């Protein structure tokens, strides 16, 4: 782990008394509201995974889509892998960080697009919280991916209906979105399953 690459860790190590005599010990800092956050290994891991997810979102945004809202959701591959490897909490962190940071990156923070992404991510995470308890022997990443994809589109359409277009007409779009969710759910799930197998925990190259 090359923690020193992260600026936030750099500043914390500088403030440590044994490394810099000029500064007072951290405990006796004059301003009590000043707090140093010590990101641990897991925080770095979450950040790294969110960055990978963000990269995939960036790539995905460059792919033209036939219909607004029909997107492969490549970033969810990362969420699926993290879910399997590190559990739901870390997956939720990665997914939500990706949504917020992605919206800042693309300049749509707090716009309808951002809330749609957030609604999709939240409902996927809610379904994944249940789906992760499916028997591991019979259900793998592909199942998680399909269920999450359906939840994603259900959450988004739900928000569209209650907030943006309160008209029954959007029901006509459900089959298109559901079919897209199924196709991309399978594809993303297969990619995630393949990566999970390739970088299995017993593989020393992927040790964290």
């Amino acid at each position, binding site marked *: 782990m090359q923690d020193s690459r992260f600026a936030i860790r750099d500043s914390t190590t500088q403030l440590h008394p044994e490394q810099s005599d000029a500064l007072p010990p951290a405990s006796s800092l004059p301003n009590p509201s000043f707090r140093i956050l010590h990101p641990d290994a897991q925080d770095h891991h979450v950040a790294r995974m969110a960055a990978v997810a963000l990269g995939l979102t960036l790539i995905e945004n460059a792919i033209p889509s036939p219909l607004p809202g029909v997107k492969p959701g490549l970033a969810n591959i990362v969420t699926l892998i993290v879910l399997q490897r590190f559990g739901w909490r870390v997956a939720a962190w990665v997914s939500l960080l990706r949504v917020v940071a992605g919206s800042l990156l693309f300049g749509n923070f707090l716009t309808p697009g951002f809330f749609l992404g957030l609604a999709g991510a939240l409902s996927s995470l809610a379904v994944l919280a249940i789906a992760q308890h*499916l*028997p591991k*022997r*019979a*259900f*793998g*990443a*592909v*199942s998680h991916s*399909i*269920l999450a994809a*359906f939840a994603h589109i259900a959450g988004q359409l739900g928000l569209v209906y209650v907030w943006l277009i309160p008209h029954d007409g959007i*029901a*006509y779009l*459900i*089959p298109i979105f*559901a*079919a897209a969710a*199924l196709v991309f*759910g*399978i594809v993303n*799930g*297969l990619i995630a*399953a*393949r990566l999970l*197998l390739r970088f299995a925990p017993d593989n020393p190259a992927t040790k964290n």
Partner: protein
Amino acid sequence: MQHLKVGDILLIICAAIGVVFLSLKIWTGAAAERAIIRSGGKIFQEVSLAKDQQISVPGHLGISIIRIEAHRARISSDPSPRQYCVRQGWLQQAGEIALCLPNQVSVELVGRDKKYDSLNY
């Protein structure tokens, strides 16, 4: 296939059936029961689709012929220059409509209850 487990395949099959079912359910409109024929903006005649017949409707340019056959309706002949409404072919679901704008004749199919009041462009 080492990436797909038994449950995954079952889920894919169930989801695919679900999507197909949903599409049929949502995209198949209600059955049409009557055809409303308009000319010059006024209702010229409202006919049941149960009976096969041919109706001549006088319009702005001339006479449009509307055919009703096997619970479907179409405009089979019209004096409008581009023939859009003729080429539209058979209408069979409630809510479908064929408009011959130059001749100001239209055929609209309705079911038991109308889905919307008007169409706007």
